[in-house]
């Protein structure tokens, strides 16, 4: 047989052809593969804002002086607070917080100006709705910073001397500190995880449920062609999804690509292989498509919560961090953010690359073994 004939006779081709037809006709899967990236991107890109802005603030200004107004202006200028209105009494301020009209109330007492004039420490009070620790944390630190800034400005005005210390912060990689920039690369990782585990495992289980897997095994197709034909289409889908999300991310959120795209696509092979291994593994355990879906969702949860996709891994208790270390997504997120946001290359990410390759080899070896057993 010539090489050309051999390539043509490879039974992987009809499998691939069939998979693409089925993929096109299966509306649910097709929808998941096209809409999901867009929806995820919009949802997570816009909705997940870990930086707290525009908390409604009411002010009880009993001092009614230029100084008290200057303090309010400093607070509002932090952009953490939006002034929703003055209130006339403490009771009214409390009611505003209770009713959710305000998340914080600034109380400036009548003696604010007199104390300042006498050179004593003037005291103002911030009442904060601290039910949500993340929001209140940032409200409190913003208020303290604003007060200190105002205080330093007053000292500088009085003494005519510059403040002795100043720390100038330069936020690298994401200077405007936009959560979207941090989240969008993560969306790529999460989407690939969903496609490779959920879509792949249900596609294989469907063949078993309908009796076509049995039919295929009786043909001379061979285990390798069968598995490759089943898996390769999803690898291609994964790459398309990744590209689409990056393009959308660029247009909508101004996602930068600071590093090398070929390096990113290369690292992605390892991640996709590892995730496919998990998908294949799920397909050998699940008895029905519904079970495959449940197992995949069960696997998705730790990925979303513990990989560092949204919540910083540094803030997690140690056992949770260990679980995160077993997830391929944890490493792939570092690769994505490293290449897209920081513009680093393989020299900085080789550790993640090695671990991903290790996980991929292990997961694929285990799942292929198990899969072969189920078809024999």
């Amino acid at each position, binding site marked *: 047989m010539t090489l050309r004939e051999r390539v043509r006779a490879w039974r992987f081709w009809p499998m691939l*052809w069939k998979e693409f037809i089925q993929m096109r006709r299966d509306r649910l899967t097709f929808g998941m593969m096209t809409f999901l990236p867009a929806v995820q991107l919009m949802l997570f890109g816009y909705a997940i804002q870990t930086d707290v802005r525009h908390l409604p603030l009411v002010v009880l200004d009993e001092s009614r002086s230029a100084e008290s107004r200057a303090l309010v202006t400093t607070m509002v200028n932090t952009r953490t607070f939006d002034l929703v209105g003055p209130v006339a009494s403490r009771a009214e301020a409390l009611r505003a917080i209770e009713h959710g009209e305000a998340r914080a109330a600034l109380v400036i007492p009548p003696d604010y100006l007199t104390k300042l004039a006498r050179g004593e420490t003037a005291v103002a009070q911030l009442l904060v709705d601290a039910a949500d620790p993340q929001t209140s944390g940032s409200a409190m630190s913003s208020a303290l910073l604003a007060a200190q800034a105002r205080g330093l400005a007053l000292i500088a005005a009085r003494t005519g001397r510059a403040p002795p210390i100043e720390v100038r912060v330069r936020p690298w990689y994401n200077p405007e500190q936009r959560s979207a920039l941090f989240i969008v690369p993560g969306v790529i990782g999460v989407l690939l995880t969903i496609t490779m585990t959920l879509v792949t495992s249900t596609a294989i289980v469907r063949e078993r449920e*309908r*009796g076509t897997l049995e039919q295929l*095994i009786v043909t001379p197709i061979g285990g390798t062609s069968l598995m490759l034909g089943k898996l390769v289409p999803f690898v291609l889908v994964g790459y398309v999804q990744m590209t689409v999300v990056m393009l959308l991310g660029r247009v909508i959120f101004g996602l930068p690509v600071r590093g090398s795209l070929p390096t990113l696509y290369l690292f992605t092979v390892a991640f996709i292989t590892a995730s496919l291994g998990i998908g294949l593994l799920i397909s050998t355990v699940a008895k029905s498509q519904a079970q495959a879906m449940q197992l995949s969702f069960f696997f998705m949860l730790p990925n979303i919560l513990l990989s560092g996709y949204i919540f910083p891994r540094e803030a997690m208790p140690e056992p949770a961090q260990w679980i995160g270390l077993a997830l391929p997504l944890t490493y792939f997120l570092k690769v994505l953010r490293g290449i897209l946001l920081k513009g680093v290359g393989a020299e900085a990410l080789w550790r993640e690359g090695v671990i991903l390759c290790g996980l991929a080899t292990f997961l694929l070896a285990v799942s292929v073994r198990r899969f072969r057993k189920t078809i*024999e």
Partner: protein
Amino acid sequence: MSEVAVRTVALHKRFGALVAVEGLDLEIKRGEVFGLLGPNGSGKTTTIRMLCGLMVPTSGTGTVAGFDIVRESESVRGAIGYMSQRFGLYDDLTVAENLRFYSTVYGLHGRERDARLAEHSAALGLTERLGQLAGTLSGGWKQRLALACATAHRPQMLFLDEPTAGVDPAARRAFWQSIYVLASEGTTILVTTHYMDEAERCQRLAFLSRGHLIGVGTPKEITTQFNQPSIEEVFIALQAKDEGAAA
């Protein structure tokens, strides 16, 4: 080419403590329509799976279409066609796509394949439904398509595992006509069934009971051997005996 399509010698299959097939000696001639009968759990499916090279026998040997079922299972798979009760069709592919897929997997390509499929679907009356999704076909048409998919590559040997379960009588009759056509062209056919009228259409029958071969012969020889008026009575008597032994 040998006149024997299937030969097994002392074929055994054990699953742990359970003996599914014990000491099976079977010989099927080329071009024969051979029926494999027996109650559920008698070892029919296990036997077919071993012959198709899907399952490795615990001991014993066998050949199908001249290939050793253990050492040459790959070649066995290329020489046979297999159709089960579940049909194994892709509901979301059309009739034409199902045919094209299976025939390509069996090694047909290009113009040769297209010519063969045109002739084959015409012979089975599928031409007008080529563009229809397999999932929208009735049971009888699905069965016809499944047979077409299993035979487009002109297998020497065809395994039919309860191929007519859940299909209406008219479709069953048409199906058996196709079977005879295939047999007349030299295809050897091994069929399992629970319909006794179908069993009587076979040239020779083998009865399995609890993994043992307890009778082989033409339908007439079988009824004489078991001293029963019909194959159906043989079957029922056998099943009663099986259940008695199990209890």
